[in-house]
């Protein structure tokens, strides 16, 4: 751990993808993540919320070094891991981090049994002998409540339901006892009745093992049940971040306000009223608007918003917003 008590520090992180337009023209850049900074302490859970194309998945994958960062810094346990070239160091980082993907069916090799799927990371990282590995695998299955474990271990992915398979994915992500886990929309492909169960399970394991957890989602209404922190992303930027309850009860950024206004709770009165949401859609990330990226849709945009990028301001303790209204 570094001296300042942070497990993960992300500093002005950028991930641009090259999009070519023919041989003679200049390359264009799709700026999926464009200057993101935050810190997380050990055992903190954060929800990274944004619409599709906001860069939330890219940010998650870049933090795990599944994408090579274009610019900025990632500091993990006090070490700069931004461009890890040393294989040993990279193995260490891989072991310290885990990923749960959205589609559990696509994330599992169909020709391997559940046992083999869980054994693979242990073999790669040379954990234990055969007997010890079996113990670890059975314990992991028990923890995600796939019991009796002897029944589940020899099964193949197609024999399990989506919810059961997502439990396997969680077990796999946690089997090397990582200290940082990114879960990318882990419940959005599951049925409503199963979602809560999986979220509860992840929360339980996150708390009992003191894992730092980044939960990527487009669904604001589930964040309250999962994390104490919330980061709102829009067009490659984090536009607001703070404690979950405070951001939901007292949103500051006009985009966060719009997002909250767009989400219904079950209520028969809903059908009688119109929702107050801005028109339009998120900008292109190849040529984002100058100034604030939400300005073209923002109901309270000022002249300045269209010209200059707003700075991130700490409005209340730990509650940051990237908006000219609060400068």
């Amino acid at each position, binding site marked *: 751990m570094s001296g300042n008590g942070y497990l993960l520090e992300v500093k002005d992180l950028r991930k641009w993808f090259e999009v070519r337009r023919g041989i003679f023209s200049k390359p264009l850049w799709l700026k999926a993540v464009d200057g993101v900074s935050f810190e997380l302490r050990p055992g903190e859970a954060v929800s990274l919320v944004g*619409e*599709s194309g906001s860069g939330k998945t890219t940010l998650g994958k870049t933090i795990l070094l599944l994408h090579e960062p274009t610019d900025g810094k990632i500091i993990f346990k006090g070490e700069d891991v931004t461009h890890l070239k040393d294989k040993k160091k990279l193995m260490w980082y891989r072991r310290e981090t885990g990923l749960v993907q959205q589609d559990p069916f696509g994330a599992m090799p169909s020709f391997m049994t559940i046992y083999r799927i869980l054994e693979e990371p242990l073999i790669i990282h040379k954990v234990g002998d055969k007997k010890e590995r079996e113990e670890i695998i059975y314990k992991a299955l028990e923890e995600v409540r796939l019991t009796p474990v002897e029944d589940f271990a020899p099964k193949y992915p197609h024999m399990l*339901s989506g*919810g059961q398979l997502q439990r396997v994915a969680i077990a796999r992500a946690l089997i090397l006892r990582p200290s940082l886990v990114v879960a990318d929309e882990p419940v959005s492909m599951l*049925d*409503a*009745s*199963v*979602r*809560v*169960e999986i*979220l*509860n399970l992840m929360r339980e394991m996150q708390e009992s093992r003191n894992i730092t957890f980044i939960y990527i989602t*487009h*669904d*604001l*209404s*589930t964040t*309250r*049940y999962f994390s104490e922190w919330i980061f709102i992303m829009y067009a490659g930027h984090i536009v607001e971040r703070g404690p979950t309850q405070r951001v*939901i009860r007292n949103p500051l950024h006009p985009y966060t306000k*719009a*997002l*909250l*206004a*767009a*989400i*219904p*709770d*079950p*209520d*028969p009165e*809903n*059908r009688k009223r*119109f*929702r107050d*949401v*801005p*028109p339009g*859609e*998120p900008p292109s990330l190849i040529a984002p608007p100058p100034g604030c990226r939400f300005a073209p849709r923002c109901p309270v945009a000022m002249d300045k918003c269209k010209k200059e990028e707003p700075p991130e301001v700490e409005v209340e303790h730990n509650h940051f917003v990237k908006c000219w209204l609060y400068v």
Partner: protein
Amino acid sequence: MLEVKDLRLYYATRKGVVRAVDKVSFTLEKGETLAIVGESGCGKSSMAKALIRLLPRNVHTYDGVVSLDGKNLMELSDEEFRREVRWRQISMVFQGAQNALNPVLKVGFQIAEPLMIQEGVPKEEALERARKALRMVGVHESFADRYPFELSGGMRQRAVIAMAMITNPKIIILDEPTSALDVITQANIMNLLKKIKQEREISYIFITHDIALSSELADRVAVMYAGQIVEFTDAEEFYTNPKHPYSQKLMASVPTLRSDKKLEFIPGAPPSLLNPPPGCRFHPRCDKAIPRCREEEPPEVAVKEKHYVKCWLYA
């Protein structure tokens, strides 16, 4: 206006007969929206296909009564149904339809197509009406001369809604109309659908797995489970006081933004439609099940006027 009685749609597969829609009955009044909610695989989309009669090849059983303004549509031949009912009286916005527009045809032409094919409207007039329909759904009419890739996801969805509306049908079936869209775009589309409903006396059948979203349009709600409707009631009743144990659990599993409640989940998974459990199909997951639930299929009980529950607890 629309009365569906004992509608069945079974598919024949190599593993056996899949009972996707199993004796479903409901009614829909003019200008009213019926939301059909349920988890994936409960038969919601099959029901839509049965209503608009777009059936796959492996149909095993397709019967019951679907009567529109007193006329039983099930007695029509496929050709008569195509000519007189589909799109003229009942149209549909398919799930993910915004991504199913033909990429090489201009948007306006695709919106106008039902008019030309169904009603024989001359091309020029049909295109003019397509432009009007685009304006109605909040897209500038110049987009009629563009190709689908030039429109954003939300605009394409609006175009698909324009296509469903252009023949002035009595009923539009909306099958997960916003499932691939972002929340703000989704709210904008819901606003649009509400506006259309206010301006014209149109009825929607709104199929969704999202309970919270269903309350944006629903006047009445039907809950589907394993091919059957287990509860059918008014929105006011359903969202505040659901009666069927499945509806209650489903409601308790919906995360909410504005109220603090403890979330629950339903243990187990929905049954296979190949071989549904005997008795009540929900009984293996129901914590209120009594011995009778395991043996006998529950009747549809009217617990109140216009509130039907298929459950032994109320019989």
